[in-house]
């Protein structure tokens, strides 16, 4: 059974001219221990999908569909159920560690808090657990005293603390939203290695959100590409990279200035920009205005999922024709 089962998730806000849909009928599952990637640009609905799973949607958001974790429905669930699951069964790692940490509390205190609340440990046991976790994420007490404050750490070190907090209660699912976007390349590599290592050691599943196809390729078993709140393409990561079918996926890939290309060559672009979230009723493929291979069909109706290989689908009338 899937650990996480998201079905027809839709998230909308009230706009001046009616509801504005930002996540539109998204379905996916994540198996225990699996690593699942969500890729797309800002405004495509990645983060709101994650927040819906965590039960952290901002006030004013209206969600429909179904999100179940371990078989229990958590979409629009009450705070009691959610606070029992958050931290214990699922935990989140955010993009900006400084905003996720409390600036006036020590790092060990913040890690210990999770262990105290979720595992019911006493103060001394929680302190020991915090020390162990900080050591596990590469912040040994010999060099990183437990009474350090977040501002005394670098960005990468802070992200390690956030990961230690996420691990505190041994969750089954870790959601990491752009966990390395603010970091430089070597720090990014170390944090990604750390995430692989701790999820593997704990047997936790990972939902990794990134705009970087390189990070998705190196980290995930399965993936989905989102555009304008909808799934554009999804499948096993190896299958998607072997045969990218949706023109948006291909565009994202081509826009990466790859190391293999000639230096000084022009960067390939996707013309236009991500549309702002629009009214609920949409006609045609949301990517059609930016798509080189769009035809009249694409503007008339929503493309159905086309199966390309086992588990690999693209929502496109002309898959594989960028």
């Amino acid at each position: 059974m899937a650990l996480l089962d998201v079905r027809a998730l839709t998230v909308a806000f009230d706009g001046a001219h009616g509801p504005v849909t930002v996540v539109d009928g998204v379905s996916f599952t994540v198996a225990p221990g699996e690593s699942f990637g969500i890729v797309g640009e800002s405004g495509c609905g990645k983060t709101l999908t994650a927040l819906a799973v965590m039960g952290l949607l901002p006030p004013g958001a209206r969600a429909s569909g179904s999100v179940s974790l371990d078989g229990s429905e958590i979409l629009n669930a009450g705070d009691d159920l959610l606070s029992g699951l958050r931290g214990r069964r699922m935990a989140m790692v955010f993009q900006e560690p400084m905003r996720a940490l409390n600036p006036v509390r020590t790092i060990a205190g913040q890690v210990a808090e999770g262990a105290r609340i979720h595992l019911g440990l006493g103060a001394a046991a929680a302190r020991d657990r915090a020390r162990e976790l900080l050591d596990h994420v590469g912040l040994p007490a010999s060099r990183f005293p437990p009474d350090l404050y977040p501002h005394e750490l670098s960005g990468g070190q802070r992200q390690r603390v956030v990961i230690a907090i996420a691990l505190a209660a041994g969750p089954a699912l870790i959601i990491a939203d752009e966990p390395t976007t603010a970091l430089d390349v070597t720090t990014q590599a170390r944090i990604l290695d750390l995430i692989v290592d701790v999820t593997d050691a704990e047997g936790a599943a990972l939902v990794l959100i990134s705009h970087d196809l390189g990070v998705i390729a190196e980290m995930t078993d399965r993936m989905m590409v989102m555009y304008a709140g909808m799934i554009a393409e999804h499948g096993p990561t190896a299958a998607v990279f072997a045969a990218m079918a949706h023109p948006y996926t291909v565009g994202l890939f081509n826009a990466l200035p790859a190391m293999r290309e000639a230096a000084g060559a022009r960067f390939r672009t996707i013309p236009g920009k991500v549309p702002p979230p629009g009214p609920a009723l949409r006609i045609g493929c949301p990517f059609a205005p930016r798509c080189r291979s769009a035809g009249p069909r694409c503007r008339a109706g929503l493309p159905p999922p086309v199966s390309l290989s086992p588990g690999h689908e693209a929502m496109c009338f002309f898959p594989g024709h960028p």
Partner: protein
Amino acid sequence: MSGPVSGAPPALLDVANVVRDYRLPRRTILAARARLRVLHGVSLSVRAGVSLGLIGESGAGKSTLARLMLGLERPDLGTVRFAGDDLARLGRARRRELRRRIQMVFQDPYGSLDPRQTVGRSIEEPLAVLARGLGPRQRRDRVAAGLVAVGLDPGAIGRYPHAFSGGERQRIAIARALVTDPDLLVADEPVSALDVSVRSQILNLMMDLRDQRAITYVLISHDLTVIRHVTDCVAVIHLGRIVEEGTTAAVFARPLHPYTAALIAAVPKPDPRFRRKPGKVPPEPHAPLFVRHCPYAPRCPRAREHCFAEMPPLGEAGAGRRVACFYPLE
């Protein structure tokens, strides 16, 4: 050294033996303020038409070096010269002239434009201060031409920054930097905050402008693929010291310093065959502040006894290349 060789034209920008210390906050009320050395005697020069990339991890001193190049900070030791003039010893008139010729673009397109000023006023502002000879009409024409040059509609003049996307704001910031017709543009992470597809558009724009206007870039980016595409030369900075220098093509094709090789290898590859495997968690690196040996040695897979005993000098390593390593890669 990198000072101007007699006979050759002076470098556009020449950084010579620059040391920069930051004073740290007191740990207690009576304690002396400790100093943190962020640049340990950095020398490099930027020649007109040869764009330079600066790479290295956060905290290496890249942005400090950029601020020194812009004259926004003064070195504690050493000099920064622009077209032969010491930036620390300029009169007011020369300083104003210099501000016209060196411009900058920063990472955050949301923070670098005044939200209460129209786009037109923001772009015009440097002209009002730096090109006083121009009348209002000429200034307006320059602003409109600047917007067109960066691919925006001149109608944007009367609108406010909030009406624009991140990519468009970065275009506005570039228009503002270019309106004084500078020779040198220092860009600190200009595309890091932008989405993938928009990033390519801005980088293409920067390459076009360089070719059309003979602008030289100093580009700082932690995205090595960007540096590789856009710059001609590259300097690799590690903990306040240049450890490798050379043409971008040569350094990326064949890095000599193990640190450069590690930086290049760390770039995520969009290919699932390079799947990350669980292993030992690599610890946070030590950042030794004052050491007598190679500061990279504690992290270096090639380090030998010698590397922990002595500081490797930045020495010549073939045509146009320098490396600070006792055991460079072949």
